C-alpha cells in the first residue's frame, strides 16, 4: 500500500527521476539552439520547395497532357499514402546505392559556417535526404491546398484578364495566383506549423536537428526525459513565433478586403492561434453586390 502511494506521488511530482534544473540548464544551451536553427532551416527550405512542387503539380493536373496528369495524380497518391518516416528513411538509405553518401558527408558545409556546437556534425547526406523527403511529401499536400485556392477564384477573373489580351500564364501570374495566394495562406501557415514538427522525423537518420540533438545530450547525461521537455519547449517557442507572424501576414494580405470596422484578433490570439477561425478565408472572398 505504501509502495503504491509512493508510486502515485512520483507520478504526480516526477520527483524521483525528473530534474528540472536540467531543463533550465539545457534549454539555452548552444547545442540545442543550433539544433533549433537546423530545424528552422530544414522547415523553411522544405516548405518553400514543397509549395513550388504543389504549384507545379496543379498545372500538371490541369494541363492538356494526359501522361502528366496521371503522373501527378500517382505522385500525390503515393506520397500521401506512405508514412513520411518511411520516405525519409528511404531517401537516406537510397543514397549509398547512388554512391553519393560519402562524398556528401565529406563536404560538411555546416561545420564550415560555424555549426560546431552540436553533439556531432550535421551530415550533408542526412540533411539532403530530409529536405528531399520533406519537400516531396509536402508537395503532395500543397497540391491539394493550391488547387483549392486557385479553384476558389471565380472563372470570371481569368476571363476578364483574357478579354484584356492577357495570355493564360500572364493572367495566372498577375490576376489569379495573387488572389489564390490569400486563400492559401491560412492552410499554408498550418502546413508550416506541421512542418516545424515533422522535421523531428529526421532524427531517424542521424540529422542533428532539435530532437536528435536533445536526444543525444539527454542519453549521454541520463536526462532523456528532461531533454525531451527541452526540445518540446523549443518546438512550442518556434510554433508560437510562427503563429504570430502568420497573423501579421494574413492581415497584410487581406488589406484590400478587410472591413475596417471588423474586430481584429489580438496579438496573443494570433500567437496562440485562438479566435482566428477561418477569418482569412472569409475575408478573401470578394464582396458581391
Amino acid at each position: 500500500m505504501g509502495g503504491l502511494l509512493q508510486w502515485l506521488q512520483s507520478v504526480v511530482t516526477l520527483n524521483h527521476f525528473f530534474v528540472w534544473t536540467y531543463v533550465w540548464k539545457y534549454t539555452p544551451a548552444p547545442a540545442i539552439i543550433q539544433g533549433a536553427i537546423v530545424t528552422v532551416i530544414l522547415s523553411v527550405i522544405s516548405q518553400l520547395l514543397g509549395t513550388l512542387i504543389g504549384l507545379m503539380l496543379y498545372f500538371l493536373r490541369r494541363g492538356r497532357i494526359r501522361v502528366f496528369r496521371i503522373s501527378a495524380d500517382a505522385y500525390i497518391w503515393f506520397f500521401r499514402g506512405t508514412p513520411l518516416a518511411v520516405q525519409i528513411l528511404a531517401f537516406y538509405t537510397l543514397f549509398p546505392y547512388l554512391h553519393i553518401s560519402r562524398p556528401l558527408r565529406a563536404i560538411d558545409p555546416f561545420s564550415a559556417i560555424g555549426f560546431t556546437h552540436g553533439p556531432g556534425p550535421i551530415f550533408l547526406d542526412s540533411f539532403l535526404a530530409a529536405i528531399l523527403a520533406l519537400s516531396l511529401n509536402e508537395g503532395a499536400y500543397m497540391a491539394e491546398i493550391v488547387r483549392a485556392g486557385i479553384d476558389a477564384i471565380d472563372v470570371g477573373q481569368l476571363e476578364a484578364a483574357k478579354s484584356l489580351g492577357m495570355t493564360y500564364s500572364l493572367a495566372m501570374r498577375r490576376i489569379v495566383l495573387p488572389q489564390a495566394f490569400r486563400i492559401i495562406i491560412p492552410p499554408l501557415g498550418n502546413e508550416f506549423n506541421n512542418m516545424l514538427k515533422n522535421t523531428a522525423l529526421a532524427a531517424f537518420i542521424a540529422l542533428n536537428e532539435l530532437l536528435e540533438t536533445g536526444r543525444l545530450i539527454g542519453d549521454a547525461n541520463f536526462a532523456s526525459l528532461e531533454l525531451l521537455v527541452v526540445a518540446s519547449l523549443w518546438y512550442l517557442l518556434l510554433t508560437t513565433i510562427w503563429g504570430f507572424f502568420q497573423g501579421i501576414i494574413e492581415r497584410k494580405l487581406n488589406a484590400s478586403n478587410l472591413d475596417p470596422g471588423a474586430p481584429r484578433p489580438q496579438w496573443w490570439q494570433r500567437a496562440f492561434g485562438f479566435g482566428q477561425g477561418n477569418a482569412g478565408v472569409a475575408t478573401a472572398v470578394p464582396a458581391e453586390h
Partner: protein
Amino acid sequence: MAMRGSTGAYTNGTRLMVDARDVHKYFHNNEVLRGVNMQVLRGEVVVVIGPSGSGKTTFLRCINHLEKINRGRIYVDGKLIGYRETGDGKLVEDSERNIAGIRAEIGMVFQRFNLFPHLTALQNIIEAPMQVKGIAREQAEARGRELLAKVGLAQKADAYPARLSGGQQQRVAIARALAMDPKLMLFDEATSALDPELVGEVLKVMRQLAEEGMTMVVVTHEMGFARDVADRVIFMDGGIIQEEGAPAQMFSASSNERLRTFLGQIREE
C-alpha cells in the same frame, strides 16, 4: 448565307468591324448557336435582345473567342478569330499569343463586372496596358485617371472594388476595357446585376461611348437603351437571329410573333 441588310456597305469588307458567318456552337449535345450571321459596321451600335437561353450571351463571347465556335467563321476588323486558315482551306486553332493579341483590341464588359479585387480601381485599369502593351506606368496612370474622370470616378482611383457600389464597379470595368483602346466593345448584360437605381449611371456611360462613335455590340434587357441608342436591334431566339432592323421598326412594327411575345413579356415586368 449572303450578306444581309440594305445599306450595301456590308459588302465592303473594310467597313465591317464584325463579320460572323454561319456560327454554330454546341455545349455537349446542346446546340446553342444554330447558324448565326451578323455583320456590324465600324461605328455602329448593335443591341442584341432575346429571352434567356436564346444564345445571345454565348454569341457575344464567341466574338472574342471566350467560347470556341464549332462551325462557321467570325472576323473582327478583317481578322479571323480563334483560328488560322491553312493553305487547303481548313481551320486550325490559332496560337494563344495571336488570340490574346486580337482580344487586346476588343473590350468586354461583363454582367458580374469581374474587377480584380486585389487591385485598386486605377491598378485595375493600368494592369493590361502595362503588362500586355508594355506602356510605361506614368503614361498608363495618366490615361487611367483620364478614363476614371470620364466615367465619373476620378476620386475613386485608390479604392478597392469591394469598397465600390455595383454601378461604380461596372464603370471602372468599362474604363478598364477602354484603357486598351479597343476598336470594338462588347457589353454582356452590363446592367443586369445592378440594383435598379444604379442602372442609369452605367447606361449613361455607355450612351456617351456610343455618341463618341465607338463600335458596340450590346446584349441587354434595357429596351429603353436599345430604342434610344441602337443603330440596329437584333432579336435572337433559339440560337438564331429571328429578326433585325432599326429600333423603331423592331419595337412597334414587327410582324415576328416570337419578338412580339418577347416584348410583351418584357413590358409586363
